[in-house]
């Protein structure tokens, strides 16, 4: 689903505007200094707004990279 990927890149760009698209694809709290707890909450809100989903707070601990979030969204879309 290339559209999901592009929309996710847009969400990351909104929260981490200094990252290039290439850096976004590799982004994780370890590689992005600005990815702190508040950025996590902001990213969660932007994702919920963009994809019109409710993300379980318990899942947040697992959503710690661009690719993991992309997999999560793909899974959610398949379930719904």
């Amino acid at each position: 689903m290339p559209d999901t990927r592009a929309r996710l890149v847009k969400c990351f760009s909104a929260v981490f505007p200094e990252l290039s698209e290439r850096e976004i694809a590799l982004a994780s709290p370890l590689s992005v200094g600005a990815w702190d707890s508040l950025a996590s909450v902001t990213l969660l809100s932007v994702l919920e707004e963009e994809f019109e989903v409710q993300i379980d707070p318990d899942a947040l601990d697992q959503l710690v990279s661009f690719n993991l979030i992309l997999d999560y969204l793909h899974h959610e879309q398949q379930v719904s």
Partner: protein
Amino acid sequence: MRAAVDALHPGPPMKLADALAIASSPAPASASGTYTLALVCSFTPLHLRTFLHAGLRQRFPTHAVDVTTGVYDDMAGTLRNLRGERVDAAAIILEWFDLDARLGLRRLGGWSPSDAGSILDRAQTWLAQLRHLIGRLTRVSTVAISLPTLPLPPVFSTAGWQMSPHELRLRERLWAFAADVAQDARVRIVSDARLQVLSPAADRASVKSTWMSGFPYRTVHAARLAELLVQAVDNRPPKKGLITDLDNTLWHGVVGDDGVEEISWDLDHHSQAHGVYQQLLGALADAGILVAVASKNDPGVVDKAFGRPDLLLRREQVFPFAVTWGSKAEAVARVLETWHVGADSVVFVDDNPTELAEVAAAHPDLECLQFPAGEPDALLPLIAHLRDRFGKANVSDEDRIRLESLRTSAVAMPLREDGDGYSEELLEQAEPQLVLDFVQAPGDTRPLELINKTNQFNLNGRRISAREWAEWLDDPETFVLTASYADRFGPLGKIAVVAGRAHGSTIAITAWVMSCRAFARRIEHRCLAALFERFDAQVATFDYLETPRNGPLTRFLRELTGVTPAPGLRVEVDSFRAACPRLFHRVTLRTELEHA
């Protein structure tokens, strides 16, 4: 042409991703300053801060924006720390848990019936402290306050469909606090009714976010609340005038065909909408908004219609009556000329889409609204929209006399037909009196209001924030001159402001505005003469900038100097005296020394 829908039928809220993009975009290189807002709340400000930042960037496109925040769960400390700060405005966000932590979901202090009394006591104590802290803050800043927007948790003993006496007392104390602090002109309470339209109560709270991050709002509620807070801290000057059509707008029926006694605006004739509209226009006129008529009609018939004692808009509240069989656009042009105001400061209301289109084409800056004749449910959005356009927190002395002074001037002192102002004879016979005041009362909002709403006689079009104005008044190196005018035809009130600095033999004028009602009376000449005299100056320099609207000021400087004005224009006192026409004013000069 637009329908009046925006007040009660809003567009979509800003999205968080868009707000983040706006807030993180660099300020313009030519930013004329930084607008600083102190966000005062006890919770994690998170997205509310982002939406406020983005909203202020849009509201002040020529400024950088800084939204400061305080310490979590310490609103009192944040407010105390602001005392020494210079901020343009503060936005105080109150929620129930600020009145007592037991009214929130993050603390577990007990909801026993025996706790209710102590919750009320604590709320009362905190509101009294808050009132004191806000009082200190308003000395230097505008303060917007949002009263609790989240649902009150089921703390008290009654079922949800019944309000308990404790809840009623709690709300009573909150509203008493709000009514008390709102007495201060610098305090603006965000309307809970408008917020209810924008953000329904059921869509506001996010318990998930409250527990996860300490941010209690859903994203969309934060967006809507920020929207209203930005409007409240800025509080744009209202439009100046409303031009209304008559037939099937001010009243139901066509007066020329139906007759004066047959037109109606009441329940019996199913025409109450026109009565409500008249009532609003009367209220606007009494608050200093100019109201005029533009109608294709027989002037004699209209005159008789305005003789009906049951009309809620009185004849004396309207000026001028542009009643002809000619083009509606020309009638509107005549009104604008009589008022000396630009089309962008005026709203035109008519029921006829064709007339509206004709007027809109001739006056593209005019806001044209269709009166919803025969559509009762569309009336409320129209009158709510009009109140938004003309709303003002206070009615000043100048507001009360504006219409009368315009009418008197137009009748008693017609301008010369060559367009060169009043004749010498008329100017002298008017017995003009000027009060030139070099001492400004700190609580007088009129000078700043004049600076921020005057377009035509304006040195450079720059708007000044309340903070910048407070700093200007505090600066011992600066001066502010205000001019109040009256003549035998009545007072115009405080109509001009000049601000600048005096250094040695030079006065540097940085702001100069004058109400369009005061044109052609040589008040500008008298002000400049007074400045030369007061500071014993040889030269005046002008921080002049040409704007799309400041033709009258430009013309004044060109006539004074014989050259097209440019930034940094200099005028020598001798050349001013040589070019200055004869002045007839009787002047009362008020200076600091005399006041002391």
